[in-house]
């Protein structure tokens, strides 16, 4: 589960400081949450706060009922590696590595045993089993986004955060990606939080909040 309470953040304390305050929410295991907001409303900021990439100015974040605000950067990196899977707006990879190695990289960087079977299984589930030995740039955008979902799932996270996962996809791929995200987080019993401005997704999530 992941929850936020009285969360605020401001960039570069100074004259032109941009401050954000975010609504409280809670997303339990097996639940999904859609956070809708137009550009400039702090969507990515919120996602980075939840992913412990940024430290909030005030307020609290709970992951699996543990308060994480006071953690050191190293501890935060540990929690992120162990519990959080992140899907970014644009699928980015280590270009020199194959699809398979990019998946295994998630295991390696979080100091887990490298689970080839899981990589092959996820590739089958997400429909890119034939591309495991290609370089990532040889894949289409929709395929790349599915690979980045698989990468987020490699460590069996309890929280999946997705930042605009569908904004660069057509309707067909958009449907497919959202379906896969929901299906896979359900299988893991994880919480799925999707941050987007994409109105197409509104009907697909029972719970949603707006920024």
């Amino acid at each position, binding site marked *: 589960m992941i929850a936020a309470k009285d969360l605020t953040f401001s960039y570069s304390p100074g004259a032109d400081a941009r401050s954000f305050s975010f609504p409280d929410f809670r997303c339990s295991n097996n639940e999904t949450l859609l956070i809708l907001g137009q550009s400039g409303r702090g969507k990515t900021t919120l996602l*980075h706060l939840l*992913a412990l*990439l940024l430290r909030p100015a005030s307020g609290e974040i709970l992951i699996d009922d543990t308060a994480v605000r006071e953690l050191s950067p190293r501890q935060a990196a540990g929690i992120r590696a162990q519990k959080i899977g992140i899907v970014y707006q644009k699928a980015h990879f280590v270009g*020199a590595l194959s699809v398979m*190695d990019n998946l295994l*990289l998630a295991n390696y*960087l979080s*100091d887990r045993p490298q689970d080839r079977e899981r990589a092959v299984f996820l590739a089958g589930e997400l429909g890119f089993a034939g591309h495991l030995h290609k370089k990532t740039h040889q894949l289409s955008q929709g395929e790349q986004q599915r690979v980045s979902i698989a990468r987020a799932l490699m460590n069996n996270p309890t929280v999946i955060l997705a930042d605009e996962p569908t904004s660069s996809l057509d309707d067909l791929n958009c449907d497919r990606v959202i379906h896969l995200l929901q299906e896979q987080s359900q299988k893991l019993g994880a919480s799925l939080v999707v941050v987007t401005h994409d109105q197409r997704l509104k009907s697909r999530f029972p719970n949603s909040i707006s920024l």
Partner: protein
Amino acid sequence: MNLFKISWANVKNKKLNSFLSVLLLTLGIGLISILLLLNKQLDEQFRKNLRGIDLVVGAKGSPLQLILSSIYQIDSPTGNVSLEEVNRLKMNPFVKTVIPLSMGDNYKGFRIVGTTGKYPEHFRATVGTGKLFEKSMEATIGSKVAEATGLKPGDTFAGSHGMDSEGETHGESLYEVTGIFEPSGSVVDQLILTDLASIWDLHQHEEGHSSQAPALLEPEEDHDHEEGEAHHAEAEKQVTSALIGFRNPMGAVMLPRQINDNTNMQAASPSIEINRLFELLGVGIDTLRALAVIIIVIAGISVFVSLYNSLKERKYEMALMLSMGGTRSRLFLMLLSEGLLLAVFGFLAGISLSRLGLWVFSRSAEKDFHYSLADFGFLPEEGLLLAGAIALGILAAALPSLGIYRLNISRTLAED
């Protein structure tokens, strides 16, 4: 999947950049390595043959030429001197040994040297098969000569006039091979040794119908030919030069002056002449070494620029890996090992290149001078070279890679 594999994948991913860096390192390191190899081998070859020879006497001319021709058998002899005068040196209290040499003929490019049994003795060359020459027109051949020509004890051959195989042959007088020397690693390996008398007999015999005098290599042969007949009377036996060993070091002070002032001969000190030769070569070697260092520095800059650029391109990748739980020091190590990989490849290729260069050089040296320089062993100095290359790779990679410690993950991820 491990750090090394990622580094390797990155090196492979930018082939041209990596190739350029490795190529520059290869050239720089190869150049230094071949200089080290050549220096060591030339030095070894020169010193080994020099041992126990304190002075060389011969006709007046270039002292370096006298040394090169008499000890190393690589340059033309300076001319002839009278045997009587050479033998008089034996009476000198400073002199311990006098080994007379008579040169001027060859067989298939291998020099025929008339001398006494003391010559192979001096170089510690022992006869392997057969026996040492005893009388005129008998010859004992070095191991390389035997290998190249296929001559065996009992075979006969005719020498050719001059120092290269194209010379006119002494068709009627044949040498008989009596033995083959064991390989000794000295100049004897590439020589055909015979008794001093052979050379006199041969040229006396030819005197009648050939116009060649024993002053074989004098270009101005023609002018002294007229007086040649009278000159080469039995009493006026001539040799090309003689190798002198001193009884005590005082000889080095006294003898050269005595000889140069009071006789028609010149005395040359091998160690002084060889040091002079190395000094002359040294200028060229220093220039090449400086060039190699410059190339290596450029290689370092190339590694630096290549990593710096690729790091700018891969900024997002780095932030991504950090967001996936990678630590900054781990990624720093990964980038360092990219520089390290390039350095090690450059080193290995450079060492191989220098061996290849040495092989080519040795083949031509073998062909022209019968000296083999083919010792491809790893030199201790090359260990230092490896350490230097690694230090360069690490340094060139560390400077741009330190940026990983300043990378703002959130901003980098949000920007793209």
